[in-house]
């Protein structure tokens, strides 16, 4: 699909020789690699607590409300119409346009730079 910015792959591909955060270190060495008899392993009580913050997606009320909010927060006018027309058929287009009107009304000032300025005009 058409996107606003192309190229500049550097921004979208990050390389690191070695993990930096503790969670990343854990993901490399905890339960990866050779393991023999569990009873001789150092107890790693406490470490589990750190790994548990790994986000688990549960289709829950909270998740739904969060996505609803995220979608409503979207500034749909930002990338203009090109991508929209590429993707959506005619019926969809009118609905989307309706949503776009809504978006304009609720635009908060100080949103993203020049694109939102354009949409306000």
């Amino acid at each position, binding site marked *: 699909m058409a996107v606003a910015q192309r190229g500049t792959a550097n921004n*979208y591909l990050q390389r690191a020789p070695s993990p930096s955060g503790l969670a990343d270190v854990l993901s490399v060495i905890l339960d990866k690699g050779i393991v023999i008899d569990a009873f001789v392993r*150092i107890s790693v009580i406490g470490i589990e607590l750190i790994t548990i913050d790994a986000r688990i*997606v549960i289709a829950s009320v909270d998740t739904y409300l969060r996505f609803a909010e995220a979608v409503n927060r979207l500034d749909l006018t930002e990338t203009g119409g090109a991508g929209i027309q590429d993707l959506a058929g005619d019926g969809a287009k009118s609905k989307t346009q309706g949503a776009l009107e809504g978006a304009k009304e609720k635009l908060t000032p100080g949103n993203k730079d020049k694109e939102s300025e354009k949409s306000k005009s």
Partner: protein
Amino acid sequence: MTTSPTKAPATAATYVYGVMAAGSIPAIDLDGVAGARVHPFVDGHLAAIVSSLPSGELRMRRSDLVNHLRVLEHAFAEATVVPCAFGMVLMSEEAVRDEFLEPRREELVALLQRLDGHGQLNVRVTYDQDVVLQEVVEADPMIAHLREQTRALDEEAGYSLRMQLGERVATALQYAREHDGEVILERLEKHAADVALEEPGEDVLKASFLVADQKSEDFDRELERIAEEQAPRLRLDVVGPLPPAAFATLEQGAWDS
């Protein structure tokens, strides 16, 4: 408690970092887990990288985790290493030989051969949430419609509509993640000897790839192509080459003593 890092008694509990071919084990001038000096324990053609542990109760710290990884990285930089998982301890150096190296010799040798000339690359692919949410809204007229409706209603009145909207968005995102994840996996797999998938959660893809040294440029170019084609909706984070811990596994069950 005082520990003597210089000469540990032969009966000291022994922490094991990994296994190498005896001929290729480098000098490792590093502190290991619990601050003890790391040294090789050679048995025939195999050598385990070990350090002794102080007796008594041990509390693992962040630095112990980092040290474990650093020792493996140091070894990996010099030669092929079969990494052990964090926390592997045997009762003595003799036990390292009698309970680990000897009974597992064939498997360890096979692993050393298989991992020789390979590194592990950990790839994590994530969405730019706003870009992808926008795609989702644009692709599904019902989502766009629900969005329009709920924006006009206050919290109370719009609750059930917002739930509908959120559910539909969550489903669409999940579908997109699975689709994108599959495509990217397929493209990267072509340049890898093996892959270990992890539960991606809200990420698009989370996987470790075992990549041969002579394929690492191809792998990297593929990453670059994907990043370029998918910008700005996707972001790729690559860590490595790392000691191939995700691919160092012994057959379960055969261990029995």
